[in-house]
């Protein structure tokens, strides 16, 4: 079992004919993902990597039965691409693009409210259910199928955590990058509740960072509703206030969004905190041992 994507997911790439879209679509195909279509306005009727290209998302969905989209469209056009995917009725849209203007995302979020489309990202590595479906830019080989869910605002920090889990023999149910932007489509609570409801997930690794209050909201959810154990790491304890730490959303402003506040909130909610990224895998191994879940996590 898994959340969001599985072996039945049929994926189309918006921006497939660009360098990034082409590279990662090839990687996804090699991983075994069902890549069914590409969309690039003006290139309909051609094909790339054996995948048919359409001018519009609506055409691609009608012809191929795609039920998820991944977006590699450049920032000036990315918000429109998200809205086009939602307009075509796709239930899942994963926006990899980094650098979308905030005002564009405010409008996207408002347009998606109440729609049947779930947006993951933007500015995220994507979503992977190991062994079944890889949507995004994460290296496939570091993953291993299993029963630990992973969710994160960061890309490489997720890879770091996943690699440690895999090295310890702990597989993953689904790994979700929610993205490093201040305004995104899906937050920690959305994914935590999906993991809580997923019979294929035993425990969750959550990776947060400075800026905003998504971790505090996650802590409240975990305290009140979550029965599965959670291990967390929060990046940016040494980050100075007022500086954007790479991610557009990673900024302490007005004394708000510090790592200390987030760590305290999660700790109070019963979450096991790792002090460093190096300790995430071991922390999860300890939690699984305590809950008697290690044997089945190793699969």
């Amino acid at each position, binding site marked *: 079992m898994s959340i969001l994507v599985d072996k039945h997911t049929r994926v189309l790439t918006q921006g497939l004919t660009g360098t990034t879209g082409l590279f990662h679509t090839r990687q996804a195909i090699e991983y075994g993902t069902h890549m069914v279509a590409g969309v690039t306005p003006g290139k309909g009727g051609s094909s790339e990597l054996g995948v048919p290209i359409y001018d519009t998302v609506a055409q691609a969905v009608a012809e191929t039965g795609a039920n998820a989209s991944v977006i590699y469209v450049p920032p000036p056009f990315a918000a429109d691409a998200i809205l086009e995917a939602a307009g075509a009725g796709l239930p899942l849209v994963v926006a990899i693009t980094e650098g979308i203007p905030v005002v564009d995302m405010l409008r996207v979020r408002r347009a998606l409210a109440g729609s049947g489309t779930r947006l993951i990202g933007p500015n995220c590595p994507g979503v992977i259910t190991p062994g079944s479906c890889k949507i995004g830019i994460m290296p496939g080989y570091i993953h291993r199928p299993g029963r630990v869910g992973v969710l994160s605002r960061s890309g490489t920090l997720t890879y770091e955590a996943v690699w440690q889990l895999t090295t310890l023999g702990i597989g993953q149910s689904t790994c979700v990058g929610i993205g490093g932007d201040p305004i995104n489509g899906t937050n920690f609570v959305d994914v935590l509740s999906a993991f809580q409801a997923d019979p294929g997930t035993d425990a969750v690794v959550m990776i947060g960072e400075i800026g905003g209050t998504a971790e505090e909201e996650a802590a409240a959810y975990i305290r009140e509703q979550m029965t599965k154990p959670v291990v967390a790491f929060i990046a940016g304890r040494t980050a100075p206030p007022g500086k954007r730490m*790479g991610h557009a959303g990673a900024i302490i402003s007005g004394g708000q969004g510090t790592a200390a506040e987030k760590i305290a909130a999660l700790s109070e909610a019963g979450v096991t905190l790792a002090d460093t990224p*190096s300790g995430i895998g071991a922390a999860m191994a300890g939690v699984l041992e305590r809950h008697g879940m290690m044997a089945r996590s190793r699969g």
Partner: protein
Amino acid sequence: MKIHEYQAKQLFRDAGLPVPPGEVVTDAAAAGAAFTRLAAPVAVVKAQIHAGGRGKGGGVKLVRSAEEAVSAAAGMLGRPLITHQTGPEGQTVRCVLVEAGSEIAHEYYVGLTIDRRRGAPVLMVSTEGGMDIEEVAASRPERILREAVDPEAGLRPWQARRLAYALELPASAIRPATVLFTKLVRLFLDKDAALAEVNPLVLTRDGTLIALDGKVVFDDNALFRHPELVALRDLHEEDPRETEAAAAGLAYIALEGNIGCLVNGAGLAMGTMDTIQLAGGRPANFLDVGGGATAAQVERAFRIILKDPSVKAILVNIFGGIMKCDVIAEGILAAARQIGLSVPLVVRLEGTNVERGRALIAESGIDVIAASDLADAAAKAVAAAGAAR
């Protein structure tokens, strides 16, 4: 991207917001001429730097004659102004704003920012104007009123009225206030701002509203569609290393420590800094080379790190996903050959093509301290920096 007060006020003026008449000048004599042209009994000479806290730092002076204007400007121009936001070395004043004084009856706060949790811009007003709004938020949160703004429609008339009446303005100022709020919201959305503040908004003794100070910060991601805003950028106000890094497609932020960091990915870069501190050291910088860096970018990153004289050791932490470890290794070797590594280098590589990357470094003969994981790398970097000192 930040801009100066005088630039923010020009944007306000263009958007139809009331601002005092004023001129920006770069030499003291011109400040006197500007005073004379203003034909006001009292003027204010205001140092133009991006940092806040200028008044307390001596960067705002009341003047009553052209001579006083000249002497106030002479006391600021070309000198560092130190405020709580500049750091101990201060920021050099390169221009001053000479502005007609206002007779103040009351000061208010008006500000717009993005509320991340609500996913909407939020307009905030307070009767506690002229103060640091963060202090008001902490000590008297009930004195701040908020309205979430629809990003398509802008501020609704009823929202503007609610805030204007809540400020208990005189009846004659209600309509000007609602117009001002509405135009500020329009400016915020049209120009892709991340922050727009009028602090204070002043009610004068004759009952008119005027924006006495202005601060606007723009969303860097949206600058591609605002060439008119890019033209307002003042590179003197930015850290030259951060500017150079940005031009090379790298995210760099200078910090106070002595261990230079070169990492791929923002989250991992922060995690690396945290791990260094936990190991008893202090990071000299945040540096994210990004997901698809080239060997040339890695070399550039080394050059930027080594420009900081306090760097006593460098920690490279790479988790190769899309970015391959052998590419990083080539960048390290190129940097070592071309610029020479004057400080110990600790390298931790993991992920795609890691064996090839490690082999390249091992075969090069360059003195590199290899680390097995991040905790190990941090401990070794802290030890190396301590030994170098």
